[in-house]
């Protein structure tokens, strides 16, 4: 094995082209793209939990879908155990790219093998947001949880299959599992359904779980159960989790690292406790300040950002957060800030931090504006 992280994402871009009308084409209007993910890099170690946090439309779900091959990235590499993944199979079959290997990095030109979609999905599984809609209403729980095993041809004998389904259901907290085998999703509560979803993701014993807002549809009391379950799975199975949410309060207690996204970029990344206790980017600060505190005696000053995330077709110039930023200065309209190191493993992309980190940039900036 190499010293690389289990999952490495390098300069990931995902643009969705907007369909043009005939008139647009005749008038030679430029084609527009929705820049859902606009240059994102991160690593994930084995057994690590990374929370990707941001408002609707910041690109967090697109990252999840790209990681698992439901979307094909526009550019950038995803390396899972040093193998390239991405929805490139169809292109490969059409002879557009070689299936066996791909290269990464223009300077190194390192060659990596490509991983097939089927192998990827044995090792990486996704938990979707809505347990009411992500289960087949006409299949029994046994059929639902056994299906991944059948698809991947993993448990051939009936007994072995039953055994694995039983283990998965019990690990997901549905005990005794036999009671659930012949029931249908509509007979279960929301929390139980989400447990079935988790069981059918875990039945393949993946190394990576991608959980897209797994608790946002659930009641608070049930939310805690599901979060505790995910946490147990991580401890017992060493599964890595990419946890996608808009709610910082749910990640506070079980993520190792937090990445805060805004309009397709990660604006702040770092160890979870560090980011929550000592946020550096004004957007992170605002997000943390609006988390409701369950005690009226602790009501705090809140930074409520006005407006909503702008349209990712026409990105603002300079720093993409400047139109909503409470502390923006003139230079923010012009300069797109780079990521700077603000603490151990803690990065943030804000011009005001750039100034503090390296005065040279600031003076150079002042000269040019």
């Amino acid at each position: 094995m190499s010293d690389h992280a289990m999952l490495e994402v390098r300069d990931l871009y995902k643009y969705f082209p907007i369909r043009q009308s005939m008139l647009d084409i005749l008038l030679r209007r430029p084609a527009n793209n929705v820049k859902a993910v606009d240059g994102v890099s991160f690593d994930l170690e084995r057994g690590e939990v990374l929370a990707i946090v941001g408002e609707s439309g910041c690109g967090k779900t697109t990252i999840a879908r790209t990681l698992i091959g439901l979307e094909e990235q526009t550019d950038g590499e995803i390396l899972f155990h040093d193998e390239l993944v991405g929805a490139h199979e169809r292109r490969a079959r059409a002879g557009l790219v070689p299936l066996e290997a791909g290269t990464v990095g223009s300077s190194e030109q390192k060659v990596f093998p490509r991983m097939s979609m089927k192998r990827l999905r044995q090792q990486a599984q996704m938990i979707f947001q809505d347990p009411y809609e992500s289960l087949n209403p006409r299949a029994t729980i046994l059929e639902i949880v056994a299906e991944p095993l059948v698809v991947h041809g993993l448990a051939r004998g009936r007994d072995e299959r039953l055994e694995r389904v039983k283990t998965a259901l019990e690990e997901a907290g549905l005990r005794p599992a036999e009671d659930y085998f012949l029931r249908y999703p509509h007979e279960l509560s929301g929390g139980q359904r989400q447990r079935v979803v988790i069981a059918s993701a875990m039945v393949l014993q993946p190394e990576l779980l991608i959980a897209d807002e797994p608790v946002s549809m659930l009641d608070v009391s049930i939310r805690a159960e599901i979060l505790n379950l995910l946490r147990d799975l991580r401890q017992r199975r060493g599964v890595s989790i990419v946890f996608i949410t808009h709610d910082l309060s749910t990640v506070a207690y079980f993520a190792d690292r937090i990445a805060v996204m805004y309009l397709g970029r990660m604006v702040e990344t770092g160890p979870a406790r560090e980011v929550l206790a000592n946020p550096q980017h004004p957007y992170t600060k605002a997000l943390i300040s609006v988390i409701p505190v369950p005690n009226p005696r602790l009501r705090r000053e809140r930074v409520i950002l006005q407006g909503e995330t702008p349209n990712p077709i026409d990105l603002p110039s300079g720093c993409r957060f400047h139109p909503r930023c409470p502390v923006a200065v003139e230079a923010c309209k012009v300069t797109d800030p780079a990521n700077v190191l603000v603490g151990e493993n803690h990065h943030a992309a804000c011009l005001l931090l750039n100034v503090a980190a390296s005065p040279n940039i600031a003076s150079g900036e002042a000269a040019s504006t």
Partner: protein
Amino acid sequence: MTESLLSVRNLTTEFHLPDGRIARALEDVSFDVLPGQTIGLVGESGCGKTTTLMSVMRLLPASGRITAGHALFKGRDLMQLSEQQMRSVRWREMAIVFQGAMNALNPVMKVGDQIREPIELHNLMDRDAAEKRVGELLEMVGIQRSRRDQYPHQYSGGMRQRAMIAMALACSPSLLFADEPTTALDVMIQAQVLDLLKEIQKHLGLAIVMVTHDLGVVAEVCDSVVVMYGGKVAEYASADAIYNEPQHPYTRRLLASFPDLIRPSDTLASIPGTPPRLTDLPTGCRFHPRCDVKVEACDKETPVLKMIEEQSAEGGAIHCAACHLLHGEEAKFQ
């Protein structure tokens, strides 16, 4: 002591299901709403929060019956009004922001027209004045007047919720019901909507009844809280007392399951099991199957609401809870 705007007393509602069973959705629910104050109805799904609102507004589906209780609003008992009289009260005196703004707006009607509709139905002003009012309302909730002629699908989630609020305020009601107004929204938009509600309340002196399962939201905006479980009031107190001196085991466990950002713990407490089915309620205390401190009496006798702290002369809120482990006089509401 301030006169309450709405006094709900012993409200009991049943649903008659098609198979002949009866779901006892509400039993003996009492609380007071003071002018200009916000009261939160809290509990898990299926605890009767929305049914309480719908019973007071008398908007229950055909299978629902209010079998007992009163709801005194400005001295009139809403339960005794004819449907005709009720229609003049609804929206004019008390309005509701429905759950799920995506589905509560008419998709084929311009937003501005939808806001004007209640003003016209109540014959409050002529068309020009109503049109002016629509513009003012949109501005009040932070939507540009120029978007008056757009359809709901052209609005974002947060804007639809704002439009719903504008519609509820159209006839200047004195009481606003808000049913999970922020549940499907992002945290930042949620904060914006809560801020807007607070501002409007300060500006117009509205009383708000907010239904939510999010205790953080309640702490942020409510003056007093009714914790509901299985169609009954489990605890009723000021927001401060609910968070700092919770008495009912359900309230305590609900609070413990809320992630605390200031003091993150290692494991989140949860409440095993699910709320009871209303067709098949447990005997005795409705919470006893999930309670971790239950005693022998809990599955036999139904606990009454006990007064833990009387209403003080200065108008401090009462605090009562329904649990066998607590001591106190049975709570009596005037």
